[in-house]
């Protein structure tokens, strides 16, 4: 974290400015709604629109106090079925299992593409095309179909997460497997290395950085996939279930809290990838100075 230190002060200043601006913005957005609520004669514990702006049941922008209370309500007790920690853990598990499945599939396809031009020619156009397609659209249907065949619980969510994360990983690994320069391949040839040895000693290690770059993209994609899958079915656990529930109940404050929590979850998961990458690629632990021509 030492690396961030020159950014720390500016980041804090920006955060402070956003916070300071949030208050007037919140009043500006909520006062008309509060006025309408007062006009309809709703029973409110407040007299003026200004006062009510921070206490609306469904505010346009929730006030910081409301968010704080919302966090208190949704975070505790930690092991409650309706609290965020447990549900976030379930979603995270689905995402991670999905990512693992996707990595296995991705390696399989990537090796196929690197080993056989025919395989690549037959499949790559579709894998690339699928990158430009909103794959997420298939998720709701996939959940229902999988459910019909008895795949239920957290597994179908993980499968959908895998399905969505699979494409960036395949492309990334294929790129990585192809990344060794021709001279390194020649070197292995002068050793009379078998193609298995070339994969083991050269292509796999060379693909590791690419794998992690792909993982970072795929992690977010897999998380989105898992949440959408949870929303699209009758789920009993998960962030997606909480989102769907509160969206139906129009609990705006809770939705904000869940949004912030899932943002934190996304950041956490990507940070996890960064951490594993740091452990797995000791040779890249470079105190490199930031590049860029400034």
């Amino acid at each position, binding site marked *: 974290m030492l690396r961030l230190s020159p950014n720390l*002060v500016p*980041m804090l200043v920006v955060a402070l400015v956003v916070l300071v601006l949030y208050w007037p913005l919140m009043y500006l957005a909520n006062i008309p709604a509060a006025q309408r609520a007062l006009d309809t004669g709703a029973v409110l514990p407040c007299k003026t629109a200004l006062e009510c702006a921070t206490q609306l049941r469904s505010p346009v922008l929730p006030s910081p106090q409301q968010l704080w209370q919302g966090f208190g309500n949704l975070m505790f007790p930690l092991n409650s079925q309706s609290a965020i920690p447990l549900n976030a853990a379930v979603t995270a598990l689905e995402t991670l299992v999905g990512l693992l499945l996707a990595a296995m599939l991705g390696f399989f396809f990537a090796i196929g593409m690197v080993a056989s031009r025919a395989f690549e020619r037959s499949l790559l156009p579709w894998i690339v095309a699928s990158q*430009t397609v909103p794959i997420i659209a298939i998720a709701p249907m996939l959940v229902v179909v999988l459910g019909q065949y008895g795949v239920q619980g957290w597994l179908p969510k993980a499968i959908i997460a895998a399905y969505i994360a699979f494409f960036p990983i395949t492309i990334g690994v294929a790129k990585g497997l192809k990344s060794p320069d021709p001279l390194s391949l020649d070197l292995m040839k002068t050793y009379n290395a078998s193609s298995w040895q070339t994969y083991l000693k050269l292509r796999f290690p060379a693909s590791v950085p690419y794998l992690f770059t792909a993982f970072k993209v795929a992690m977010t994609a897999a998380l989105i996939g898992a949440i959408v899958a949870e929303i699209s079915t009758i789920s009993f656990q998960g962030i997606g279930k909480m989102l769907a529930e509160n969206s139906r109940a129009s609990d705006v404050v809770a939705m904000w809290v869940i949004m912030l929590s899932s943002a934190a979850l996304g950041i956490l998961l990507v940070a996890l990838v960064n951490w594993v990458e740091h452990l797995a690629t000791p040779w890249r632990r470079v105190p490199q100075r930031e590049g860029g021509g400034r």
Partner: protein
Amino acid sequence: MLPPRLARPSALWGWALLLVGFALLLWFIAAWWHQLEPASQGHKLLLVLGGLLALLGLGRVAQQFAHTPNPLVGFTPAALTLLLILILAEAWLRAYQVPPGLIPTPSRVLSTLLAVRDVLLRDAFQTVVLEALIGYLIGCSLGVITALLVSRYVFLERGLLPYATIFSSIPIVALAPVLVKMMGIDWPSKAAIVAITVFFPMVVNTFRGLTEVSPLSLDLMRSYAAGELQQYRWLRLPNALPFIFNALKLGTTLAMIGAIVGEFFGANGQGLGFRIQIEAGRFGFDIVWSAIIVASLVGIAWYNLVAWIERRLTGWHVSYR
């Protein structure tokens, strides 16, 4: 005219195997067109045989195209693969009589697509033009402007850029319901979701393009006594163009995803995402597939449009040499 390599015996064998396989599968589909009960074991074995023959043939045919430079001819194996998958799916679903409410056959999807095309076109207009395109344009332009400011002021770079990187790891689905609640179920809420999703990658990419300029080029500009504005005009912006286009291409996909996912949380009775959500809920999977096909076609067309503009504007870049 056939390329000379097609005359090679192994290639001919490949084509022959492929044709026999296809013929077997198609014959079965034709025979089973009006049947209502599952096929016999013998028929299923025949299907497996047909599939295997076609697959073997495809492998051999694809070998022949492995080093074709012409992209259109080189696409043949991929086209054959898609055709094989569709025919196999059709035959398989018919052989096992999978209820069309669960997995519709490709032919059924195709006829549904034609039947409901008016509805889907209206959905696509709502999703693509009103939501995705407007959000995309707003988000991308704001992204470029922000990147210009961030690249100019070191304080903004340090204070804002780390957030942009962090924000790209946030799942947009969580943002969608909040924005829909805030801005209503009409298209502006979805356009806002799209704008936010395309904004951050645009800032990060454009910033890199504006700042990853070779120090020698900067020295050159300095030797011309170029002002800051001229430096941007003649060096930084052209240098950033490939980066901007990368973000624009990535943005097309993100925009479609954002619009569709946004509609999952509330729409005014129109839109591809809304259609998918509703029909998946009541097992209308032929319509779901049709909507997905429309969304995919739009996504591919949009991406290629941007890629085409990119080639026109940045033909000098290494990646096209």
